[in-house]
């Protein structure tokens, strides 16, 4: 016995479940914590963009065309459409559907990899280099920041898919799939203000 005081038993938790889903799960809160950190970084990076914009005459600076719209439009549409299968995978995870999460994460991995094509082409159509001026630097920073999140989550989904196909899926792994789907939604939603800054601010400002 290690407890240093006499004790009275007033309850028993052995009948409680061994896992949970959604906001009841501990890991859900860890995920929210990291989204808060990264969301703060996105917000501050966006603030940096607006600050530099406010300090500069002409945005983009004279002689630079705003970044082209075609590929980001494709990507944005793709990201929004990806929410359909993503939310479906999330529902399958909550329903503890083993087959659903296996094929769902595989599908999301493929979808994510396809989305990297328009993202890669975006880089070629930014019409400015990061060394040219502060406008170019901050534009590249925003897009690299978002791309790193995109790649990280696609990688995470791929690893998850491999694991799910090769192992018996338990309650904690269903919760992991749910968290990963939530994170994808975060990556999609964070693109909307960041993308708006990159592509619309130079046209409106």
């Amino acid at each position, binding site marked *: 016995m290690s407890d240093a005081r*006499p004790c009275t038993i007033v309850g028993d938790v052995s009948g409680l479940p061994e896992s949970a889903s959604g906001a009841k799960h501990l890991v859900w809160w860890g995920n929210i914590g990291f989204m808060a950190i990264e969301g703060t970084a996105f917000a501050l990076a966006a603030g940096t963009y607006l600050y530099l914009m406010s300090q500069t005459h002409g945005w983009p600076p004279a002689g630079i065309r705003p970044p082209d719209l075609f590929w980001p439009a494709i990507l944005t549409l793709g990201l929004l459409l990806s929410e359909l299968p993503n939310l479906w995978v999330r529902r399958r995870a909550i329903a503890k559907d083993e087959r659903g999460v296996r094929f769902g994460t595989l599908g999301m991995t493929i979808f994510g990899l396809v989305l990297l094509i328009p993202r890669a082409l975006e880089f070629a159509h930014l019409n400015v280099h990061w060394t040219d001026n502060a406008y170019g630097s901050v534009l590249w920073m925003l897009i690299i920041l978002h791309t790193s999140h995109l790649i990280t989550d696609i990688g995470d989904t791929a690893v998850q898919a491999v694991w799910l196909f090769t192992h018996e899926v338990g309650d904690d792994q269903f919760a992991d799939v749910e968290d990963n789907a939530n994170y994808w939604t975060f990556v999609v939603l964070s693109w909307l203000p960041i993308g708006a800054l990159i592509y619309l601010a130079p046209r409106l400002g």
Partner: protein
Amino acid sequence: MTAPLTPEQADRLAVSWRDAPGLWGFLTTVDHKRIAARYILTVVLLMFLAGMLALDMRLQLAWPDMGRMTPQLYNESFSLHGSTMLFLVSVPVMEAMAIWLVPLMLGQRALAFPRLAAFSYWLYLGGVLMLWVPHAVGITPDLGWFEYPPLSGPGYAPGHRADIWAQMITFTEVAALAASVNVVATVLKMRPPGMTLARIPVFVWSQAIAGLMTIFSLPAVMLVTSMLIADRLVSTQFFAPAAGGDPILFQHLFWWFGHPEVYIIFLPAAGFVSMIVETFSRRTLFGHVAVVLSMLGIAALAFGLWVHHMFAVGLPRLGNDFYTAASMAVALPAGLQIFCWIATLWSGRPRFDTPLLWVLGFIATFVIGGLSGVMAASAPLDQQITDTYFIVAHFHYVLIGGAILPLLGAFCYWYPKATGRLMSERLGKLAFWLIVGGFNLGFFPMHLLGLMGMPRRVYTYSEGMGWGPLNLVATLGSAIAVAGGLVFVANAWWSRRHGALAGPDPWGGSTLEWAVPSPPPQHNFDHLPVVDSLTPLWTQKEALQVMTGLAVERREVLVTSVIEATPEYRQKSPKPSIAPLFSALAVTILFIGSIFTPWALVWGAVPLAAALIAWFWPQRERATTGPLAVRR
């Protein structure tokens, strides 16, 4: 299971939570107490080194026209001293106290994410080595603790001194963010049954609030130091005015982090003070709700003050007025807390053992620092005293007075819990008088020196300035305080073997950590405590109410609801693992590589991904269904 654990079950439980012996156990442990202890020992070593740097600088300034340090060595010394104390001592030591204490105060066996805590320490150690190993071979940052561009930019700071500083920050901030998410999740989801939000101990509140502040402030400094490295390495133009950049942007982002950081350090200290005042007044804390709301108020205001570090850069006057008002406003919640502590002491039956002495030293010193802060908050006055010794005096009164003195009190207070022995009261009182007396003798004259016009960061001054006598007094005081620090450490060292046996609850504390033996076993609690008040050990005098039912043959913790702490489910707690160390090593390779080439972010990601996959790969049976099922 509704009976207490049998001795066999208790033994089985202890085995389930025990680390492997020897070096392997050392490298793989996820025990929050061991991780916190190594954080604290690292901090003690760094405080010694930073203290020696301070003493060296004080000797240089003791007399006019001294030539024992060159200007370059002096620049390196204050840069290393400030960077170490702010990034490697003050914030990490508060996190360490949270990592050690929060699970114990919550009646838990572990933190929410034990491996993340181990990862946090290894990364922190990476930050320590990032700064001090280059220093050992003669490459030391030399631009102060906040390294403003353009001085730190590619045009004025060749070599890698500035990069080392910037990347040291990335290490320590990732470590701090990992620790903060861990602590916040633990406080929200792993409280004992009955510990509603209204029954959370003030210290736990303080750490949760500081954790949230960390989450919303530290990304700023990581972002801005990454921008600085990018300007230096790949020729981005963030801070280059000729290309549309702005050096002031660096200051905005740095102080978005830098000012909340002061309160990230101070709030846990206020938590220590609240716990010590309660125990040594032998009554419940006066104004618990007011103290917690004050902490939340300080946290909110802390994000609206950063510009008061920038009054001298020429911002619009209306902005200065706003930040002056906000800076003065923070004195209100801080003052409210102090009144609550005084009221608790006044209406209690205070016992003046060393932990309480440190609190009294804190109140006196911190009030002086707070008042000089109200003075400096006034933009017109700040224009006169900024970058003088008045500011040096002010922030040392706030940081030493507001954080280090409560920390030393906390160290004395919880030392018997950690070691099983009490520290010597006689040596403790000697250390107290030497440190508090020496500190005030050393730093009070700096207010006057600042008003006389002595700028900070000068390596010497001429005799005709008339600053000699006060500088000599300041050096004497600092030397006395350093001697006190050595007595304090000697006391801790000596008492580990020779101190009086403490027993589980030497001070008559009110919170759950005092319900377990000293030192606590690796699993902390045999049973799950149930809380019925803010001071469970005072309201459950006869016997502690507990629940049973967690597994004894594997690591398991109880997860409860956020508001009411109602039991929700039993969560498996991870076993020891080498993966956090390997992941930290992979991050280290990536961070150090990215000082030299941006491609390190690409190839460095490969070992990092491998280490993280190994870390998070769930250990379960191979699939028996689906297309990749194992054939049996």
